[in-house]
């Protein structure tokens, strides 16, 4: 019996020693959408993370780091389970990854309670920008800001009448409201479609009957692909399409091809944005991934790990001091791919938004091209509700 006890104590000590040896590494939990509804975007984000890890030599701020990558299938429930495991078993120091706002909203509370900084590599839900803002959440952008920029584009292009179209679910309404926030012309019609709709002939006939100056669409993933293909096939090629960048990024462009040409869309980053960090990133990405252009999802994933790297360096590797880490994160010292930006009071960035137009590059490849800046140092509409 005594022998057994000794053995178990010895084993426990071994275990503790192993844990201690491991605790020296900085741990980053990355929840990936490799399967599920956002798998195409999740794969983009994964490619961005992997390029960043390669560039950082597997370290953060010069310290050995471990990047724990797991798929959660785009399911908020599974994201919660994964985060519980990250927190309890792995003892992560940073979290990032999910593509969907629903997953971001699901995992936030546990991370904030455990004082683990969550640097979003994509969604910036309005709740986290406003009432539920939290010092441990850092956003890349607020969801509506892309639409606000698109509204401004519509003003600048002189579109007096637009038709808006989005899926009939909360995010769809948010995006259309975002567009209307800065748009000054008239909204001829607001069309809400079934989530996952395949056939858009009925809506396209309505649009033709309404004769708008332009159409603003927020239809992520397959819905956008279906819509644009059918829109152009239906003879509405002359009607300009405006979209937030998510509905007109590389994933959609490569699947739609020619009909995408001329689609106007807005984003806080584009692959032809001129700054040294971005030029280097785009070149490295295209070299690693067979000439493919990075999407905004890949860029944000890369940027997020660079932000962590800078924060760890700024606190001299003392990541136990969470206050110092938060302070370092809030005053980023790295060169972001999007250029200069600052965090507002709610940890959502105050940054520039750009107009992109789908065109052809020098090699004839269809891709987004930078047109110009639409909103300068723009802040989200929810910051006033944040008491932090």
């Amino acid at each position, binding site marked *: 019996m005594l022998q057994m006890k000794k053995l178990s104590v010895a084993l426990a000590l071994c275990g503790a020693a192993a844990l201690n040896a491991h605790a020296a590494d900085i741990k980053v939990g990355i929840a990936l959408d490799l399967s599920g509804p956002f798998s195409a975007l999740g794969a983009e984000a994964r490619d961005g993370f992997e390029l960043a890890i390669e560039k950082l030599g597997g370290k953060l701020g010069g310290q050995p780091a471990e990047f724990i990558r797991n798929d959660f299938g785009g399911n908020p429930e599974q994201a919660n389970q994964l985060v519980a495991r990250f927190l309890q078993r792995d003892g992560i120091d940073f979290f990032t990854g999910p593509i969907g706002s629903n997953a971001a909203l699901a995992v936030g509370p546990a991370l904030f309670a455990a004082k683990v900084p969550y640097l979003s590599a994509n969604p910036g839900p309005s709740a986290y920008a406003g009432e539920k803002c939290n010092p441990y959440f850092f956003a890349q952008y607020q969801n509506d800001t892309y639409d606000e920029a698109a509204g401004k584009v519509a003003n600048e292009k002189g579109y007096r009448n637009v038709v808006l179209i989005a899926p009939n679910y909360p995010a769809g309404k948010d995006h259309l409201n975002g567009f209307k926030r800065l748009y000054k012309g008239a909204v001829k019609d607001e069309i809400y479609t079934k989530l996952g709709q395949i*056939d858009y002939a009925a809506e396209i006939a309505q649009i033709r009957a309404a004769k708008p100056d332009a159409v603003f669409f927020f239809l992520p993933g397959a819905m956008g692909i279906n819509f644009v293909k059918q829109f152009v096939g*239906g*003879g509405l090629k002359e009607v300009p399409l405006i979209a937030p960048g998510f509905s007109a990024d590389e994933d959609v462009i490569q*699947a739609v091809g020619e009909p995408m040409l001329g689609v106007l869309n807005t984003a806080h980053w584009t692959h032809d944005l001129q700054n040294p960090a971005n030029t280097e990133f785009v070149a490295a990405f295209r070299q690693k991934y067979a000439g493919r252009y990075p999407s905004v999802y890949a860029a944000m994933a890369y940027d997020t790990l660079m932000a962590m790297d800078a924060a760890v360096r700024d606190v001299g590797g003392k990541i136990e001091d969470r206050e110092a880490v938060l302070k370092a994160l809030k005053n980023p010292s790295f060169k972001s791919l999007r250029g200069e930006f600052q965090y507002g009071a709610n940890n959502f960035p105050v940054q520039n938004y750009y107009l992109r137009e789908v065109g052809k590059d020098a090699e004839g490849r269809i891709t987004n091209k930078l047109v110009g800046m639409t909103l300068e140092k723009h802040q989200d509409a929810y910051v006033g509700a944040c008491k932090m």
Partner: protein
Amino acid sequence: MDAIFVFEQLLNGLGYGLMLFLIAAGLTLVFGIMDTMNLAHGSLYMAGAYVAARVHEASGAFALAVAVAVGVTVAIAAVVEFVVIRRLYRRDHLVQVLATFGIILIADDAVKAIWGVAPLLASTPAALAGPVDLFQGLPYPSYRLLLIGAGLAVALGLYLLVNKTRIGMLVRAGASNRQMAEHMGVRVGGVFAFVFALGAALAALAGALMAPISAVQIGMGEAILIPALVVIVIGGIGSVRGAFVAALLVGMVDTAGRAFLPPALRAVLPPSVAADLGPALAGIAMYVLMAAVLTLKPAGLFPARG
């Protein structure tokens, strides 16, 4: 709202209905004649779309792409039939659902392994890319006219095959009383393999034809399976004629719901209520139709078995 708009929406309803028919026809044949629930029908549709998209991109010949897609998918289906489906004919529906659901998961991962997760490029053949003027003031997508033509041709072909040919007679015999047909010397196993291959060919044809106007990506088969199931339930499971009528009904109701319901509600209700109610009702119109049909005719419009 003028006459042209209404006519265009009718045409849209017809087109969507025929699109659904292409998919539902194969599903209802397999279910009705073999009494086998094949959820993996959507995966065959996906296979057709992927193969067609790749061949079209590589060769530039759309007709060739459709033919290759049908051929490859039928070959895949033959293997699946031999390895899995053949063992399920006499099992109950739950086993069939489980097994064919497993096939969906495998098919999705296989597609991911071969082509990756990003949706594929599938362009409209250049000759059919633009609209044609049906008459003054109504440019209509020429590709959709092709879809309508294809749907009608398939419907006619199936009618002739099932009702006018020897193999059609054997299919009907096997479906109405398998044991008796076997006693009369019909090799039912062979007939079933033929029906399964035919179903696969129809699914592949649907996938290949739909590829230029929809997203070719993982999960596309599951998305289309739901309206297809609604169609075969309304039509009466196993009846090709039922599937045809039900597909047109669903296409019309769904399109009309989306086109006319929101403006109609806006005319009679306060704007905020109408804005919420319109899309919600349009979204469920197809299911309301199904519930109404099942209340009046629980076996569907044209039950295959008495």
